[in-house]
């Protein structure tokens, strides 16, 4: 029994390129992510981290390259991208909650409209998720009535409502006041402990040490470092990584 060491990866990215006009943002990125991994992506601003994570579910259209999500090619021209996106959750820097809907309605929208779940079903799930992120008492609040940290927790619950197989976080704490960072990170850590596959663009060193298993360092659109968190942070191999870590630590 070889205990299947080569389990099918959940995400495989092959030769991903992205140009904005003449600007070469992502340079032929190739990487593989397995189920249950929590991968942190670090790098100086302008290095292409956000573009990279937004290309994974094609919110940003890649210029060339292939992205495989399990057996499905995300970049395949015939695939219905909306169907694929249901299984790839995403949490944004600025929360992007729907301002005209309450917290509860925000979470219920996609399950009822996309998955055609019944209202009662969706509501039950949504309330459970709100409880999980510690906001069961905010169900009927509108986003504007919530703090940044609360909004981001609702946004996480909203993604979870679609039962995603992987969660993408695009700088989830960088728009938050410092005192609210912890409450969001706590939710993320508990997700990681539950075995959720996560890709997190973040410089939160505490989160990385605590929860992430692997760190990618992106500089000028290239992955210059890829390894276990401790190793990359304590003992980086690349000069650019050392400089960069020196600035943020």
């Amino acid at each position, binding site marked *: 029994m070889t205990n299947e060491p080569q389990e099918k990866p959940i995400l495989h990215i092959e030769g991903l390129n992205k140009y904005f006009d003449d600007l070469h943002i992502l340079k032929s990125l190739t990487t593989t992510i397995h189920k249950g991994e929590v991968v942190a992506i670090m790098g100086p601003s302008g290095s292409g981290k956000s573009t990279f994570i*937004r290309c994974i*579910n094609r*919110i940003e259209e890649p210029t060339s390259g292939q992205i495989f999500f399990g057996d499905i090619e995300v970049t395949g021209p015939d695939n219905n991208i*909306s*169907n*694929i*996106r*249901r*299984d*790839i*959750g*995403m949490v*944004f820097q*600025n929360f*992007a*909650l*729907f*301002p*005209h*809907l309450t917290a509860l309605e925000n979470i219920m*929208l*996609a399950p009822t*409209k*996309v998955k055609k779940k019944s209202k009662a079903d969706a509501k039950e799930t949504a309330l459970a998720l709100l409880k999980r992120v510690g906001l069961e008492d905010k169900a009927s609040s*509108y986003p*504007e*009535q919530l703090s940044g940290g609360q909004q981001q927790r609702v*946004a996480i619950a*909203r*993604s979870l409502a*679609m039962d995603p197989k992987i969660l*993408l976080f695009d700088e989830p704490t960088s728009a938050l006041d410092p005192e609210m960072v912890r409450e969001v990170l706590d939710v993320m850590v508990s997700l990681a402990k539950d075995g959720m596959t996560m890709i997190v663009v973040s410089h939160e060193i505490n989160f990385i040490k605590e929860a992430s298993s692997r760190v990618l360092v992106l500089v000028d659109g290239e992955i210059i470092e890829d390894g276990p968190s401790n190793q990359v942070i304590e003992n980086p191999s690349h000069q650019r990584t050392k400089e960069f870590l020196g600035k943020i630590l």
Partner: protein
Amino acid sequence: MMKGRIKIISSKNYKDIAYGGSIAAFLALVIYVMFFSGADWSLFKEQFLNFEKMEGRYHIFVSPLLLVLKISFYSCFWATAIGLSMAIIRNYNNMFLNGIITAYIVLFRSIPAMVLVVLVYFTLPYVGLNLVSTNSVIASLSLLFSAYTTEIFRSGINSVDRAQVDAAKSLGIGSLQSMRWVILPQALRVIIPPLTSVLIDILKTTSIAYVVGVPELIARARQMEGVIGSVTPLIFVSFLYFLIILPVVIFSSRLEKRSRRWSKS
């Protein structure tokens, strides 16, 4: 210190002059019209507000009123439907379709309503298309005002933050559903005020139907004017227009308040 006082006094003086001047001008105008313009005011009551002569004739306005409402309703419906569809199509950023839609907007924003109504009504029969006069008015108004509604819906859609679209996409919500459940509800705040003024414009523009022989309010008023020898029916009709338009204004301000609910606090 001195300078400051002088400034205050001088600015106050201007205000007083503006107040006093505007009131004086208005009174002067009223006095001129009443006593020196040669107008005979017993005539005014007899000719303009002679409701005794109108008695027993009000029912004549019922069917033309319904007709005006019908023309307005269908024109509003089609103008909104066409405008919304074109705005959604434009959102797909297809160069060819956008070109066509822009040409459509420029054309129908440029053509005067009166000209289009006359053109449609008098020329279509020559190509064998015999539209009832009412329908030719509805068609003209729908074409004209859909040019405006398209732009209203488009700027409403554009007013919604792009991050909202991204968030909807990331949840697997398709583009039409995201339009329906995420974008339009938010765009409504921006859309409703100008859309209301288009609807009011449509209501007013129905009066042009008079020229192509639609038996609407003005046509009836002018007939009656001949019969009773007084302009009162026409004054009554302009009052009716007020009555039709008022509910639209009230309705729209309510809707506006409702859609603002979530942005308060």
